[in-house]
């Protein structure tokens, strides 16, 4: 995935634009550091092993596919877009995921969602989220295995990564994310009773809050460096909070508060690091606002009414599908042209 590909609009020479792409891409990778470090602090080295495996496999797959397609390998690898896809997918997966799970996800992301569609700049779907969605649909047992916060190096780390941990022990490790726990709380239980019953291991909520805020810090860095524009994240988070508030006011026992939606799932991570991928997002400013709003609305609709506790991946992929339509209807009017003038796409 290329986060920063705007400089490649002319697409005349991949070489001349690579340094710019790579330098922006480096900033994005730097901006993921707070989030990644916070996750590592709470969930252990499994987070780093995910990212390491995903980036290595991503680079290998990218090189292999480019070779098959008879394309130059070096420029595509040095623009670090495969590295970023690896970081984002690695950070999305449950810590210490087995190597084969990461491999299947990266194949779906790099080989299918990116290279089969024509490579960097041509992918209609966000590669990391395509990989994530395929894994979530295919291997629900592994994908919902979020262990509660744990020490840096857990006893079962190696066995988990190598995939040799027996299923029985695997089940013992699993815990629920806060979104998951609230979604599946006993029916008839009011929200207050639910929280009083201490449904989650200690620290879990604090861990998720801190991680979300760390992603926010990285996102603010990206905004500050003008690497992303504000349109998508603000539209996404604004519509998410608005719709979550509406649901919460209608039935506070059934639908969690907007703050809970904002801080316990992947909302902030998605808003700043996933939805802003310029290749698969809308292009004009109005288009970006619509695109971001669509994602925010879909996240809440799926979380509150659908079957999955979190929904960033599905929401982003569904809005990726709408991007051609959004772009068609939000072509900026050139200065001096009146509405409906010839040349204005209607």
């Amino acid at each position: 995935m290329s986060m920063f590909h705007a400089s490649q609009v002319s697409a005349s020479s991949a070489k001349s634009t690579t340094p710019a792409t790579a330098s922006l891409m480096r900033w994005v990778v730097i901006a993921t550091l707070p989030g990644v470090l916070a996750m590592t602090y709470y969930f252990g080295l499994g987070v780093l092993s995910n990212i390491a495996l995903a980036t290595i496999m991503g680079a290998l797959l990218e090189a292999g596919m480019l070779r098959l397609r008879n394309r130059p390998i070096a420029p595509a690898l040095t623009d670090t877009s495969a590295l970023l896809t690896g970081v984002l997918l690695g950070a999305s997966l449950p810590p210490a995921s087995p190597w084969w799970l990461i491999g299947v996800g990266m194949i779906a992301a790099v080989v299918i969602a990116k290279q089969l569609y024509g490579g960097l700049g041509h992918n209609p779907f966000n590669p990391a989220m395509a990989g994530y969605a395929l894994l979530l649909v295919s291997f629900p047992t592994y994908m919902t295995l979020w262990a509660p916060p744990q020490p840096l190096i857990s006893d079962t780390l190696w066995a988990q990564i190598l995939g040799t941990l027996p299923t029985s022990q695997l089940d013992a490790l699993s815990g629920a994310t806060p979104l998951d726990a609230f979604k599946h709380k006993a029916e008839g239980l009011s929200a207050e009773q639910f929280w009083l019953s201490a449904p989650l291991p200690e620290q879990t909520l604090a861990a998720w809050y801190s991680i979300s805020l760390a992603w926010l810090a990285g996102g603010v860095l990206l905004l500050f460096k003008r690497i992303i524009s504000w349109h998508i994240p603000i539209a996404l988070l604004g519509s998410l909070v608005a719709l979550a508030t509406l649901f919460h006011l209608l039935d506070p026992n059934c639908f969690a508060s907007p703050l809970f939606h904002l801080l316990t799932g992947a909302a902030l991570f998605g808003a700043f690091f996933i939805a802003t991928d310029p290749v698969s997002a809308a292009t004009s400013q109005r288009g970006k606002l619509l695109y971001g709003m669509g994602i925010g609305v879909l996240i809440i609709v799926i979380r509150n009414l659908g079957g999955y506790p979190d929904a960033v991946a599905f929401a982003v992929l569904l809005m990726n599908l709408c991007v051609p339509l959004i772009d068609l209807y939000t072509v900026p009017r050139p200065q001096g042209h009146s509405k409906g003038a010839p040349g204005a796409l209607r």
Partner: protein
Amino acid sequence: MSQWQALTRDGLWSNNPALVQLLGLCPLLAVSTTVVNSLGLAIATLFVMVGASTAVSLVRHRVPNAVRLPAFVMIIAAFVTCAELLMAAYAYPLYQLLGIFIPLIVTNCAILGRADAFASRQPVGLAALDGLMMGVGFGSVLVLLGGLRELLGQGTLFSDMALLLGPIAANWQLTLVDDYQFLFFVLPPGAFFVAGMLIALKNVIDQRRAARALSSAATPRTERRVRVTGIIK
């Protein structure tokens, strides 16, 4: 190449209903989860295709043009009903498993398409052969897709073949990978994905063939002269 050969080649390869015409995709994608499901539906579709093409060709001079489509649909529906009853009689468990997709063969546009485009204008022999070849072409892709999805999704092949072939096939199941499940290939998206890959594979084979034919065809040596337009042979 005789007309018969051309029809055979069209149905099986160059105008394959599933890979080239992309007709009848609904049952193709919905049912192709295992070999036995695919084979059941493939046989039923083949039966309907041959029967409908033959019957349409037989009545082609009697049916007024204005009502030809309703008439053809009625003929197809009659054959589908036969297929459904036969399946209920001889392969009841499979009949239950395939459920709505057996009656839905009526809506398989490959069948109506061939009836209207070919059988209604051709003598009986050719129409029947066309129905047979189109049916085999469709069915073989269906079975191939079913096999690939079963293999990739559950790690088995030929599981539950007894549903169709009776007790003789009770232990035909090949388990290639134990304790394996990849839900993506079991669920509908996997069908789209594998079907897309098969179409891509066919196109690659066609391109390679065309390239080979081009390079092996002896390019006649031509004489180049100055001040002529074009090449003189």
